[in-house]
């Protein structure tokens, strides 16, 4: 029994470790070079930040399908704001900071809207956020006139590929290897959310609302407020993620930015062992889920596999993760 629990509890982590060992064994130094490991943490940092927020929403018994479109909408706002502020004579860094705050605010408002309709309108979260998926993308397209919006402020790009120098490591040209800001932000957000979920009263409320809303209500928890809060937090995190995306690309393609992010984020949450039924979940599992998906993409390139296989491999990993979870439920 103990052995089986190890697999159900740490399945995703074991899979990640297994793939890691396989990569080290077959690719050795190429895989272990610092740049590659750095890329693994930073490449899907935007999806990671969103997935952390998604974990909270799913634990509270909800879901949000609108996050990809919301990323495009907030990203469009970031670039437009940064251009506008910088052209009005403001310093580039101040302009970037203010634009980031603006995007996070817009994201939070969009999330609040989702949460409001879910909590008070009593409409299924799936349907509400399906509306958001269509609506937010449309707003993004209107802002970008259907095309891409380019930043005129080059320090934004420096932020996208900037970070802290990793000590004692030099790249091929002898320059420092940077640990990107995006990865630092991803890790920071995950730690913060993990603390909030496991160590605060609000965290316990989220779990309680997801596990049994009626019981939560009877124990004097305002379930509407909790629901509103998790969607708003997710919205703000989407705004933050859109800053990372916009900086990485120095622009936002309003038709393509954030495409399928909702699926990637939900996949990471599910792989990480959070139950889609709510009431049970963990942030570290989601982080492992994000890393697992990134590692799979990384391996597709490294092993010269036709990229068309990527979807199938991802699909298998997701299915296996869910099947393991189902097994756990039946035991309880």
């Amino acid at each position, binding site marked *: 029994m103990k052995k089986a629990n190890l697999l159900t509890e740490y399945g995703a982590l074991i899979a990640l470790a297994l793939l890691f060992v396989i990569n080290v064994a077959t690719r050795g130094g190429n895989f272990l070079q610092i740049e590659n490991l750095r890329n693994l943490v930073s*490449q899907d940092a935007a999806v990671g930040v969103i997935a952390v927020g998604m974990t909270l929403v799913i634990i509270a018994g909800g879901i949000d399908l609108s996050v990809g479109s919301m990323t495009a909408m907030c990203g469009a706002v970031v670039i437009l704001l940064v251009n506008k502020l910088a052209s009005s004579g403001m310093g580039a860094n101040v302009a970037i900071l203010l634009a980031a705050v603006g995007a996070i605010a817009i994201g939070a408002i969009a999330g609040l809207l989702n949460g409001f309709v879910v909590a008070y309108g009593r409409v299924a979260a799936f349907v509400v956020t399906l509306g958001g998926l269509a609506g937010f993308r449309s707003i993004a397209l209107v802002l970008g006139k259907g095309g891409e919006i380019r930043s005129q402020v080059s320090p934004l790009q420096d932020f996208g590929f900037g970070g802290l120098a990793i000590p004692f490591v030099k790249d091929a040209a002898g320059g420092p290897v940077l640990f990107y800001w995006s990865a630092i932000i991803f890790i920071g957000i995950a730690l913060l959310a993990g603390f909030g979920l496991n160590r605060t009263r609000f965290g316990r409320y989220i779990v309680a609302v997801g596990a049994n809303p009626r019981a939560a209500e009877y124990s004097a928890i305002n379930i509407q407020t909790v629901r509103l809060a998790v969607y708003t937090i997710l919205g703000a995190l989407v705004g933050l993620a859109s800053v990372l995306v916009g900086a990485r690309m120095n622009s936002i393609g309003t038709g393509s930015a954030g495409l399928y992010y909702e699926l990637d984020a939900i996949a990471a949450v599910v792989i990480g062992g959070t139950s889609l039924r709510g009431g049970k979940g963990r942030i570290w599992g989601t982080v492992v889920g994000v890393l697992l998906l990134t590692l799979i*993409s990384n391996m597709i390139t490294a092993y010269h596999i036709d990229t068309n296989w990527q979807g199938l491999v991802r699909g298998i990993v997701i299915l296996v993760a869910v099947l393991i979870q189902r097994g756990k439920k039946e035991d309880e």
Partner: protein
Amino acid sequence: MNRFRSLLGIALGIAGVVLVGCQAGTDAGGATAGGGAPKTGKKFKVGISIPAADHGWTAGVKYWADFASKQNPDIDWIIQDAKESGDQISGLENLQTQGVDAMVILAYESGPLTPIAKKLHDAGIVIVNVDRGFTEPVADVFIEGDNKAFGRKSAEYMAKKLNGKGKIAIIEGVSCTVNTDRVEAAKAVFKAYPGIQIVADDKGEWNREKAEKTMANMLVANPQIDAVWASDDDMALGVETALKAAGRNKNIWILGGGGMKDIVKRVMDKDPLFPADITYPPSMIGFGVQAAAGILHAGKDNAKKYMPRHVMIDIELITPENAKDFYFPDSIY
């Protein structure tokens, strides 16, 4: 139940092993070292990064990228396609850590891919850019089709065939420089013919289904349309479906573009719906592949002395007379 879970664990492990197995296969296949290998004895490694095949033309790009790289077996080619810009950027980063010497890039979108291309170029990687350009001159070689000629030549053909008189509909692609160049050049030509009237102008997003819907709406709004300037062969097929569904496929004709084999065949067979087509060969990626191989073989510094920075590929009109020169039944496009 325990047994079931153990099986799942094993399945997860197998997924990993399958990935590695695929690698073993490709390594064995590509182990024959060619003559032009670099002096260190290591093979050159080149990445090809293209958008995922979301319509016929991009599928053609994939086909020709495969084909051209196979003609250079002395180089280790890694082909990857991207479903959106972020995906493509990550792919390029992965190629960099793989230690590629050069990259052939057809950008999903121009703006988003420019920062990463700049970073790779600064790191000393040879960048060959095909079709969709970057917003800064960061490519060592930029190869593109002449989209203004595409618009001009197709519009001139249409105006002449209509004897300078008639009602036409325009179906546009995805908004980007490629579409703008084509449409503006075509409209400039039509302007010179006062008898030609553009009765409808809307987007088909280079997509068969969307073009079908757009055309269906145009047909309802316009009782008479003499010709459709569809600017892409996928869209031309969508237009055809709409015309047939509305029973309006007589006394009208379509001009697509791209040189899809199905359309070229119809031109060759003198189908009245498709009197001509205009080339925009996805095989241009193959030229990019050759350029990358050539630069690496010659050495970057030597190649710089004679390789052009910008190559513009001419666009040709396909008519029943010359269609057989443009018909490649083995290609998927």
